[in-house]
């Protein structure tokens, strides 16, 4: 094989913007044709199809005049990777590339190399009726390892000189350590002859029977980079060499399979925080679970017991929402925060909008987390299949992805918990009579099909199931009502069909449709029974159009259609927050609900994104929602503006209204009030983002949120049970600093600090006082840092310092002689606070890279110093004694991961 060596840049050019139409103010032609040129025509692509437009002005597409060869990413080259990067180039009237962006990334350094080269291309400009005009085109930059036809070996001479031998050692430069499993390629000058050997454990290698001559010796050691030397082999002699390699500042590829670029579209939110995939699975304390990394973001409060609740900028968990590809996820975590329900290695990015989010998102007053998945392995990757098998003490998972022909690709993932294997060893036998240990599983089957370069279909089939059942014999603890089977089950199976179309270079259409059943069940003996089935159907259509480079218009509609069937018996629903300790179940009334119906919530939104000036952008939006269950509309105008003070400093300001329907139990007949109104909030946000250096960003954001029409309970739990007589205010500031994982950078990290206060006032007409929100956390400090060491080691730590949650003191009790329990007397709601929470998590990973696969061992330790963080107080039977409830202890998670 002839390895080469210089990258070969073949390309395919599509002309996307070169057609008929009137000249717009920005100078771009209007309208589209879609002409595809063959790769071999690259240097005169413009010569074809010049007569494509039969009528109207004569359009001549641009022709590449000066092609710039990209630097082949060294590591990709060493790994014999090939790739294709799809770019969108804006070519000015002078033929120069004025803008370039990645449309379809390839990762492994290809994207940066392609961008760098493409920006230096020079074109013969596109012309309209002979006049040069700016255009935007798609360009596919192909990186190939040249593999020319093998040339015949020279005929042996009658008396060839006796061969020689090349032997040597490969050592680490820093400590002289022998480097094993290093690839050494010895090739002659014209590369017509090459030998490949692998160093042994002692770092030695040997190539026998080398014809005398001069050879190029290339040594590739993954983490030490590569070195190329010229050596001479003499007849019948041994040429001994020693190569010392220095640790290379290499690109991390531990989790960066596939594309790595995150392309920021024009902002639709004041604050958008993205965790790139390179970091998603490497953050300590998350066990490699990308979605748990959300807790590191500024503005995100620490959920108690690691419950996985999304508590964003002082909003209640139910006020925020997580979406997968724009569609709400029924359940984000298994067992309330243990593990997320989507395989992290299928994720492209996680976008987090703590407030002032786009009109694309509705029916929520808190924040939004949107999870984006990547396309599975395509034919353009240099392998037939990619697989990851991971074993951990908590669960095990398998991921497989492969192309389905030229235009489609498929990913399959499955995870199952292993808790049931170890559960009986953890829980003392005399604690519970275990009927079924906790079991969860999830699956994903993602298919992407791109029939043309403008159409993309995605079929996402995914689901999850959790089940936990214990039998509490007779009675347990100090509440006589807590007995019988505790049965907790959740299950959902969803199908999502997404279709994206590039209607023309300025217009995009997205259609999403998702449906599937959701089952929820909770039972506690005959005291509590909750059975619900929701057949959720969700649809979204969004059209984005850019009439010119300064304006983008967006119009969209989405709808929830949820037929439901719900049975419930148990205590009457209470105000979800701020009601203080409930007291024993035995002292509660019981209510019965058996209802079915259809929840219909359509929403419509429009946005105009105006670039008023090169540095100044304004976004105006309006969202309208309707909730059938309360028969009310909500109108939410939103405004956002950004100003690029310098190239690295962006100022931003946002104001908007946000509305949210009441929870199901709050507006349901029998137990709630169908006459409730929407819950409303106003978001005010301002801040700046400063790019200190490449991949180093600092941001400061201030926010204020005003809440009104909050749903609060009627004192005593009497009809109408709930009213909109609550208000709230939340204000604070967030500081964030992040070092992104970049090629050549051995580390990345996040630092965030949030100072905030979240208050509520229930029934202000009754002269009530402001009180703290249940999860108000004044100070939230998080620092995460990951460092890559030589020889496949990676270490990292996450430190969290967070104010304790408020709590309501219990000042006494009333003996309930009917049930023989004590009803707590609450003091002022949330007038006390738990002590400061502090925790350090560490993660160590060691990776071995073999010729065709990788193996990694990881140890992820949560709460390294076993801090006994107080999450609250637990009381004795009559509330005369108390002791702290502490959070999760030291939890080590060990795992092995194999990757093809």
């Amino acid at each position, binding site marked *: 094989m002839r390895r080469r060596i210089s990258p070969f840049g073949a390309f395919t050019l599509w002309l996307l913007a070169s057609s008929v139409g009137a000249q717009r103010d920005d100078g771009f032609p209007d309208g589209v044709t879609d002409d595809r040129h063959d790769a071999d025509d690259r240097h005169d692509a413009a010569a074809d199809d010049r007569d494509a437009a039969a009528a109207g002005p004569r359009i001549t597409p641009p022709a590449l005049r000066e092609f710039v060869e990209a630097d082949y990413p060294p590591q990709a080259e060493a790994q014999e990777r090939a790739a294709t990067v799809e770019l969108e180039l804006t070519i000015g009237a002078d033929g120069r590339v004025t803008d370039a962006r990645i449309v379809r990334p390839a990762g492994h350094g290809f994207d940066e190399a392609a961008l760098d080269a493409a920006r230096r291309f020079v074109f013969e400009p596109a012309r309209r009726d002979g006049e040069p005009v700016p255009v935007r085109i798609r360009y596919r930059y192909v990186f190939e390892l040249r593999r020319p036809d093998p040339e015949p070996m020279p005929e042996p001479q009658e008396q060839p000189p006796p061969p020689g031998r090349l032997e040597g050692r490969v050592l680490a430069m820093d400590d002289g350590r022998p480097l094993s499993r290093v690839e050494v390629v010895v090739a002659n000058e014209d590369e017509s002859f090459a030998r490949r050997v692998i160093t042994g454990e002692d770092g030695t290698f040997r190539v026998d029977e080398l014809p005398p001559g001069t050879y190029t010796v290339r040594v590739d050691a993954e983490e030490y980079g590569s070195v190329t030397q010229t050596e001479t082999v003499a007849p019948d002699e041994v040429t001994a060499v020693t190569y010392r390699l220095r640790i290379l500042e290499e690109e991390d590829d531990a989790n960066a399979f596939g594309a790595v670029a995150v392309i920021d579209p024009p902002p639709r939110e004041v604050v958008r925080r993205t965790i790139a995939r390179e970091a998603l699975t490497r953050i300590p304390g998350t066990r490699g679970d990308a979605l748990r990394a959300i807790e590191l973001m500024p503005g995100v409060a620490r959920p108690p017991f690691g419950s996985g609740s999304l508590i964003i900028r002082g909003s209640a968990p139910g006020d925020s929402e997580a979406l997968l590809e724009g569609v709400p996820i029924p359940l984000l975590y298994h067992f309330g925060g243990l593990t997320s329900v989507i395989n992290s290695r299928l994720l492209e990015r996680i976008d987090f909008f703590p407030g002032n989010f786009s009109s694309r998102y509705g029916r929520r007053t808190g924040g939004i987390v949107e999870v984006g998945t990547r396309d599975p392995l395509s034919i353009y990757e240099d392998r037939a299949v990619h697989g990851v098998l991971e074993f951990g003490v908590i669960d095990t998972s398998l991921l497989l992805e492969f192309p389905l022909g030229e235009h489609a690709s498929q990913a399959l993932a499955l995870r199952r918990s292993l808790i049931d294997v170890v559960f009986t060893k953890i829980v003392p036998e005399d604690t519970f009579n275990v009927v079924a240990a906790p079991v969860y599983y999830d699956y994903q089957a993602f298919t992407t099909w791109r029939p043309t370069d403008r159409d993309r279909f995605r079929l996402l089939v995914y689901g999850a199931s959790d089940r936990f059942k214990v039998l509490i014999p007779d*009675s347990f603890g100090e509440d006589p009502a807590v007995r019988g089977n505790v049965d*907790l089950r959740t299950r959902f199976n969803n199908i999502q069909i997404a279709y994206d179309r590039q209607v023309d270079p300025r217009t995009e259409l997205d259609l999403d449709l998702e449906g599937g059943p959701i089952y929820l069940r909770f039972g506690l003996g005959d005291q509590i029974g909750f059975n619900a089935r929701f057949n959720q159907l969700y649809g979204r259509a969004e059209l984005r159009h850019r009439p010119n480079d300064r304006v983008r218009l967006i119009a969209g509609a989405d709808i929830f259609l949820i037929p439901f069937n719900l049975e419930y018996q148990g205590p009457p629903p209470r105000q*979800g927050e701020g009601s203080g300790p409930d007291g024993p*179940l035995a002292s*509660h009334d019981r209510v019965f609900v058996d209802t079915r119906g259809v929840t219909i919530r359509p929403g419509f939104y429009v946005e105009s994104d105006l670039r008023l000036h090169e540095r100044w952008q304004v976004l105006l939006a309006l969202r309208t929602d309707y909730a059938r269950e309360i028969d009310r509309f909500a109108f939410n105008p939103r405004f956002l503006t950004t100003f690029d003070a310098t190239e690295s400093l962006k100022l931003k300001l946002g104001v908007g209204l946000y509305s949210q329907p009441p929870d199901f139990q709050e507006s349901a007949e029998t137990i709630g009030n169908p006459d409730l109104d929407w819950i409303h909030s106003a978001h005010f946000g301002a801040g700046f983002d400063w790019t200190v250096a490449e991949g180093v960003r600092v941001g400061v954001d201030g926010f204020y949120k005003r809440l009104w029409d909050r749903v609060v309970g009627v004192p*005593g739990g009497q009809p109408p049970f709930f009213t909109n007589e609550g208000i709230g205010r939340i204000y604070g500031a967030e500081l964030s600093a992040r070092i992104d994982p970049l090629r050549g950078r051995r580390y990345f990290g996040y630092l965030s600090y949030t100072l905030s206060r979240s208050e509520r006032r229930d029934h202000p007409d009754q002269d009530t006082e402001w009180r703290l929100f249940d999860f108000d956390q004044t100070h939230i400090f998080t620092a995460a840092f990951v460092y890559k060491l030589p020889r496949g080691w990676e270490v990292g730590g996450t430190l969290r310092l967070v104010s304790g949650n408020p709590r309501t003191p219990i000042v006494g009790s*009333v003996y309930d002689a009917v049930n023989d329990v004590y009803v707590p007397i609450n003091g002022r709601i949330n007038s006390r606070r738990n002590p400061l929470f502090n925790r350090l998590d560490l993660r160590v990973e060691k990776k071995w890279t073999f010729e065709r696969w990788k193996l990694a061992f990881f140890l992820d330790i949560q709460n390294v110093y076993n801090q006994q963080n107080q999450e609250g107080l*637990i*009381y004795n*039977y009559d509330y005369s004694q108390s002791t702290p409830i502490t959070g999760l202890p030291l939890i080590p998670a060990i795992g092995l991961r194999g990757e093809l």
Partner: protein
Amino acid sequence: MKGPLVVLLAVAAGACSDSLDPAYRLNKPRVIAAEASIVGDLENRTNPRPGETVRVRWRLAFPAAPLPASYVLLACAPAPTAFGVPLCADGEPLALAAELNPSSDAPTLAIEVPGDYDRSAILVLGGICMGGVVRTDVDPRDAEDTVNVCEGEGTGQLVSLLHPVDLDGTQTNHPPGVGEITLDAEPWTAPVPDDPTAPCADLDLPTFALGGDDVALRIAMTEGSREAYATLEGDPPQPGMRVESLQNSLLITAGELDRSFSFIEGDATSTGEILYTPPSVGDVEVPAEGLVVKLIVVMRDLRGGVDVASRALCLVP
């Protein structure tokens, strides 16, 4: 909904709260039940009908010798409430009783239910101070700090009883009866001595040594204790019938029980086995002549009927 989470946390917390006194541990004066009886009724009913007078007698329990108690008790129509501390509705109280001087008599309140009473229950609220003088100005709704029921010394407790009223004859109820109690499969009949602080080695009591093995006890009901009663449940409410489940609350002065409550339900006529573990050496000071250990069982039908029984055993070093 919040309920499931609360219950799961309660279960989880219950499993790790060894440092707190369990409900069965009788180590301080306690109010343990309110017994209701209808004045002049020969059928031993518990739930008054309009126009009848119900007498509510509060049962107290002490780890050692009984203490005199003072109290303030008030009966009223309950305000509608689904949870939390019960409150009186607006209007005049139905009855009021106070004993401000500590007395050995059980706190008692007689309530004459008006003939036109239309609520399904009457509410009794009050404070009982055992070993001290009760305060008369306690309002739990205004509590900012610890609620003190006693003036100075004493063990105080706010109490409540939401007692059913048999408006239409469908809620007639009779108290259950504690039947045979067995200890290690043997009938356990030994009553608590008049002076529970006196030596017991010479008394005819079951005797256990400190650090002894677990022993099982079982509580049976008397015949007819579990009555059928009419219910109105479901959405929309449907009339139905249920048979009472009997809740047995357990209290003991020394040693450990494996539960604080045990039920008689289903087809059963007695509880399952309840394990009693004698205290270990060092847990409690036991004189050579023995220490009386009191077991109190409060059987409830959860519809207003209560029966209380007690037994004693002797603990020796």
